[in-house]
């Protein structure tokens, strides 16, 4: 398993900027610093970030909500003499 991981890391590390090439259409249709190319880049970045941000936020909120509830439940201490007392009775023993 670690060999596969190491091999994957080596491949990624060895990868040069050749991986960071645009698709054929963007590469040939637009000149350098073209506004359309820039617009697509920003839009792609935004649309890439949106689902991760949304689902990350929801998952994070659910995680903390459940963890806080678990802590609150765990902090409640059951007192045996309190439950054996008749309902409605208050005050000291």
């Amino acid at each position, binding site marked *: 398993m670690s060999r596969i991981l190491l091999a994957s890391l080596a491949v990624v590390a060895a990868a040069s900027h050749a991986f960071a090439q645009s698709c054929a259409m963007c590469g040939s249709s637009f000149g350098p610093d073209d*506004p*359309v190319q*820039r*617009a*697509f880049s*920003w*839009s*792609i970045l*935004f*649309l890439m970030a*949106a*689902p991760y941000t*949304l*689902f990350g936020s*929801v998952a994070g909120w*659910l995680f903390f*909500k*459940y963890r*806080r*509830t678990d802590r609150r*439940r*765990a902090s*409640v*201490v*059951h*007192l*045996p003499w309190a439950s054996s007392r008749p309902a409605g009775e208050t005050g000291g023993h």
Partner: protein
Amino acid sequence: MPHRVPVETAPPVSNTRLAMIVLVTGESMLFAGLIGMYLVFRLAARTWPPGDLPRLPLGITGANTVALLGSLVPLSRALRAVRSGNAAAAVHGIETTAILGAIFLVVQGLEWTRLVEHGLTLGSGVYGGAFYVLIGCHAVHVLAAVVWLAVVAILARRGAFSAARHTALEMCAIYWYFVCALWVVLFPLVYLY
């Protein structure tokens, strides 16, 4: 010796709230797609809006934004009132929110009528198309939320809510918060940027 026992069995997040979160997340992705479309057109354009098309009315839309965001106050108060057991006091807050939402829609409709008269239509290039699709989609959501608020207001008048039972109001409030939060993003993007 004291020992720990679970005293609550209800889940931390109710099923209805979870369903609402799923709905709102899905709707957010719809708007993320539309905003992505708008960004492509906006950033690629050399002049925005195109010179031959009318500018968007900032003043009236700004006032409309205040009305929409102001509607959050009575709704939050209504929610607090119901949670504290004063359901009768919530009716007024829900109705005020619905009325403010309706005002937002009417003003936006009038604004659109004026824009169409000045030549900005759905077919006015990418500017008109992007504007009407993005803002129109939001308006449809506001309309749905206003109808929902009206139904909830009727239920509240009939005394359907109590401190222990007010899920319909809570879900409606979540949707209304979502619609208002969307406008906080859309207004600067479309009208100010």
